[in-house]
């Protein structure tokens, strides 16, 4: 395993078998001296090794450089694409059996190490990216594309021979442009989300260049191309040069095609398009591409196509076009955010391809080639130089350093000097600011009296180390209003820096209701917390609360004190509140009855003493039901109904007396809030039941 931050480069991983269809044939031979004719049937099966051919699945692309739809000074960097599967560039043979020979590099073409993929970078106008096209039309006519395909429709890049010759890699170059990188999976920076740490990298052979002629950014499209069967189209080696002229012209499709806006729909839906647009060139005056056709040198106007003087590029001055690419990028972003989600991928891709949609194939005289595009993305090279030149040319200083008197905002070197009918540079808007060595800036200040004065202001960033002045007693430790921080300095002016800072802080705080609410809550709690703390201390001094109370801030103090108080108080009621009062006060003792109440009662009621003793023992007055009570003689004369009522009343009185007499003094009346069923309850229950029966 590779260590984090390290990587290993491999020349390539050539799979033992290329993509395609294979027949597996198994033959078995049996021999025996004794038996003849031991023939075994041949077993054959078909195997297909798949590999992307016209479209690279998106999950196979780990990263691209420059990032898609980005802008930057990429002049010194080679565009690249990182592919997840390490064998991808070698899964097919670029030179298949039967393909035309490659005269200038026969060995390299036949070498298995030569990848079938190439990353080609073309500028706007150098080629055309197609819409979805049946794959048979995705290659140069005449090149066979047999064998299984991964998709039915694909994209192709159409380029004239000039562009192939100037921009495409040579067969010899191909090997150098693909390699395999192994990184640690733990290195998120380099692993890019890979699963095994191995990834294939395909480089482009072209450094994107800023347009120094028109002095404007250039949009480039990087296309991963399938070179199968078309190695012979690649350029032959040329003698190398050590320097290149960045203003040299490659090709401009816009210069050879008519100016009418070309609707790709028309082109791909109607065959008569050719006759519509071909007419300007009917006289055989087809302009040839070449350095002359892009006569935009000088950055102003040029007449390229005599038949069509209104060409868009001809009328655009370089200064106006300076921000053109920014607009394109912004438009693509707009499309990305405004399209509905189903179409967005298509719409964005389509917008990115604007400028790569000029259908020049019908108009150029030279041969054009088509290469299947497996993946493509566009980016913009916005300036000469690169990050290092930008960084090295930075004006470095401590804050408070003013630019020199002649400092001009930097402009691209290639811009023509301001002159002619261009408006003169605007006057400097104002005098340079009044800046002191301490970083203070003099600013106009209208005092509260309405007087126009100048005051000093310094932001939080200063050119030297400062001390916290309130720590040293120069300033109040804590200011409550901004005026406390207004300083008058020796020159008589006011230094409002800190007062302004205070006011900004106040306004920022007020602008956040949640913060204001937080402060107010805190303020309440501060008082609450203090009260709680002090109550804790004081309550702790009182005997029975000692060590019991621990009030914390989050509980409401009053509620908490109440709860704690109840808890403490209820722990020992007798100690805290004294003895409980008895339920009933005892009556005045009657001496002559106190000695033997049962006997007295039995005598008084004329019943057997034994019955009462028994009832007391059993705590059951029901025993009395069986006692016969003597009645007066006149009882028979009474109405039976009245008699019955009197009987019942007597029964009840008797029982209530007995029940009171048999009350259990040991019952804890305080403890139980729920009543036990006592004898009286039983009695009442029985009587109720009896009544019910009688009424029924």
């Amino acid at each position, binding site marked *: 395993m590779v260590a984090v931050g390290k990587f290993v480069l491999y020349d390539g991983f050539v799979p033992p078998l290329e993509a395609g269809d294979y027949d597996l044939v198994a033959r078995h031979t049996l021999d025996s001296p004794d038996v003849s004719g031991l023939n075994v049937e041949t077993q054959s099966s078909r195997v297909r090794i798949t590999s992307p051919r016209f479209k690279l699945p998106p999950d196979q692309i780990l990263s691209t450089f420059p990032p898609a739809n980005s802008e930057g000074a990429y*002049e010194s960097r080679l565009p690249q694409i990182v592919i997840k599967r390490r064998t991808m560039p070698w899964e097919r043979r670029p030179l298949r059996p039967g393909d035309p020979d490659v005269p200038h590099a026969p060995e390299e073409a036949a070498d298995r190490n030569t990848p079938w993929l190439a990353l080609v970078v073309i500028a706007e106008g150098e080629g055309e990216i197609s819409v979805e096209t049946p794959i048979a039309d995705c290659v140069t006519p005449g090149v066979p594309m047999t064998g299984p395909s991964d998709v039915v429709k694909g994209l192709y890049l159409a380029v004239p021979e000039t562009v192939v010759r100037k921009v495409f890699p040579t067969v010899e170059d191909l090997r150098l442009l693909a390699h395999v990188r192994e990184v640690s999976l733990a290195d998120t920076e380099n692993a890019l989300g890979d699963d095994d740490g191995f990834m294939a990298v395909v480089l482009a052979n072209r450094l994107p260049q800023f347009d120094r002629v028109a002095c404007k950014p250039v949009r480039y499209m990087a296309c991963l191309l399938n070179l199968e069967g078309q190695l012979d189209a690649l350029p032959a080696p040329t003698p190398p040069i050590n320097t290149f002229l960045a203003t040299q012209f490659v090709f401009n499709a816009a210069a050879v095609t008519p100016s009418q806006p070309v609707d790709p729909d028309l082109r791909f839906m109607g065959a008569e398009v050719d006759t519509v647009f071909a007419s300007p060139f009917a006289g055989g005056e087809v302009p040839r591409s070449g350095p002359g056709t892009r006569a935009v040198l000088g950055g102003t106007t040029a007449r390229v196509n005599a038949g069509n003087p209104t060409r868009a590029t001809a009328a655009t001055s370089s200064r106006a076009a300076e921000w053109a690419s920014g607009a394109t990028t912004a438009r693509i972003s707009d499309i990305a955010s405004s399209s509905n989600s189903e179409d967005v991928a298509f719409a964005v891709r389509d917008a990115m391809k604007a400028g790569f949609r000029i259908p020049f194939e019908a108009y150029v005289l030279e041969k054009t080639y088509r290469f299947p595009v497996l993946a493509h993305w566009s980016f913009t090279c916005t300036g000469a130089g690169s990050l290092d030149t930008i960084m090295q040319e930075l004006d470095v200083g401590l804050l408070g350093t003013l630019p020199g008197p002649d400092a001009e905002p930097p402009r691209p070197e290639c811009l023509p000097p301001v002159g002619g009918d261009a408006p003169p540079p605007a006057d400097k808007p104002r005098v340079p600011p009044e800046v002191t060595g301490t970083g203070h800036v003099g600013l106009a200040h209208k005092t509260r009296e309405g007087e126009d004065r100048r005051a000093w202001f310094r932001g939080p960033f200063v050119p030297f180390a400062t001390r916290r002045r309130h720590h040293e007693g120069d300033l109040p430790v804590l200011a409550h209003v901004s005026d406390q921080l207004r300083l008058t300095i020796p020159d008589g002016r006011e230094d409002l820096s800190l007062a302004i800072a205070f006011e900004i802080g106040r306004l920022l705080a007020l602008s956040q209701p949640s913060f204001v609410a937080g402060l107010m809550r805190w303020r309440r709690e501060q008082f609450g917390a203090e009260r709680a703390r002090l109550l804790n201390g004081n309550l702790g001094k009182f005997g029975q609360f000692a060590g019991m109370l621990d009030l914390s801030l989050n509980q409401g103090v009053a509620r908490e004190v109440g709860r704690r108080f109840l808890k403490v108080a209820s722990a020992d009621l007798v100690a805290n509140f004294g003895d409980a009062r008895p339920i009933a006060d005892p009556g005045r003792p009657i001496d002559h009855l106190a000695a033997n109440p049962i006997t007295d009662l039995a005598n008084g009621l004329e019943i057997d003493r034994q019955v009462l003793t028994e009832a007391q023992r059993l705590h059951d007055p029901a025993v009395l039901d069986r006692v016969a009570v003597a009645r007066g003689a006149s009882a028979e004369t009474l109405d039976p109904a009245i008699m019955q009522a009197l009987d019942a009343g007597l029964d009840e009185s008797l029982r209530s007396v007995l029940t009171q007499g048999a009350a259990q003094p040991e019952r804890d009346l305080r403890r139980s809030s729920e009543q036990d069923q006592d004898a009286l309850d039983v009695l009442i229950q029985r009587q109720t039941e009896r009544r019910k029966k009688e009424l029924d």
Partner: protein
Amino acid sequence: MAKATLTAEVVMNEAVAAIDGVLAATDVDDFTDDDKITPREVRQFLARLRLLEGVPFSNIVADSALLPIESIRFFYVDRGWTDALTQGALSVGTVNTGDRAQLDRLYGAIEDEIDSEERLVRLPGGEERQAGRAGLMTGFLLRSRAVSGWPGLHVRAYAREPDGNDEEILPESHPDRLKLLRLERLAPAVMLALFDGMPEVVHIEEPKRGLQFGVSLTETASNTYSASIPARNVQTANYVDENGAEVETMAEAKRLPVRFRPGSPGVLDLANTGRAFLDDDSLGMGSTLDGAEFALQMIRFPYRQVFGDPQVTSDFDIAAVFRPTLSKEVGALTTDFERVFDAD
């Protein structure tokens, strides 16, 4: 028989005495379990305010001339200014004299807590938490095409240059490295970085999006460019100098020329460039050229700009700078200003 002794009067007296401020914790630090006096949301807001979040840019840089196009400006952060900022924010919560008296008592503790909270605003993953009192805070403002064209620039500040050369990267918790308190693009082309200390060197590095391949371009004549790459020994991956000896840094390495295809700006002639590499014995490339060796030569590490010691000029005598003599020139300036403003 006992008797309860807590009376309403006792409670009232103590509640009134509560204004005599003593600190009460409202929050607990998640990591250190320390009690915090300032509630969490207040603390976090004030810490972000300390790092000037939300402060209008015109209050940070009072005049555009202080930060011209294509410039980088280093600075110290004036703690007095940021303290005034937090005091202003705290003043929102005081309503009456009692509140202010209490805030006076609490302020020292609040300030200490915000000091330690500052370092927690930006906590990148995989880095340890740092604690301690707030010290010197420095930083820079960068206004450049580099900010708009290279989103995601890496910024690292070192209290001591790591190992004496520019090619080292130390983790943020390393004692030689300064914690980045804030790194933000304030505008498409303006970047603000705040460091927790005084850096000796500051590295600004191109965003790493995987490895990149490329060359160094040099303009040899008008619009004519040549390109070169630093030489490496492909066996050891170290740079080699003119004498074939291995060297540490890219700056000491020999430059290998890169060849181009005639008539095609920017298109490399790889085969011929590669053959030139093979001819150079010090590169250890053997007799045949392969893609890996070629890629190794062409690897470009992300560009890293190193800013050295920004020439500390301390100990300004404020009285000397704010001398009344200045007011004479100021008078002239004022008329200029008036002229300009009248013209508007």
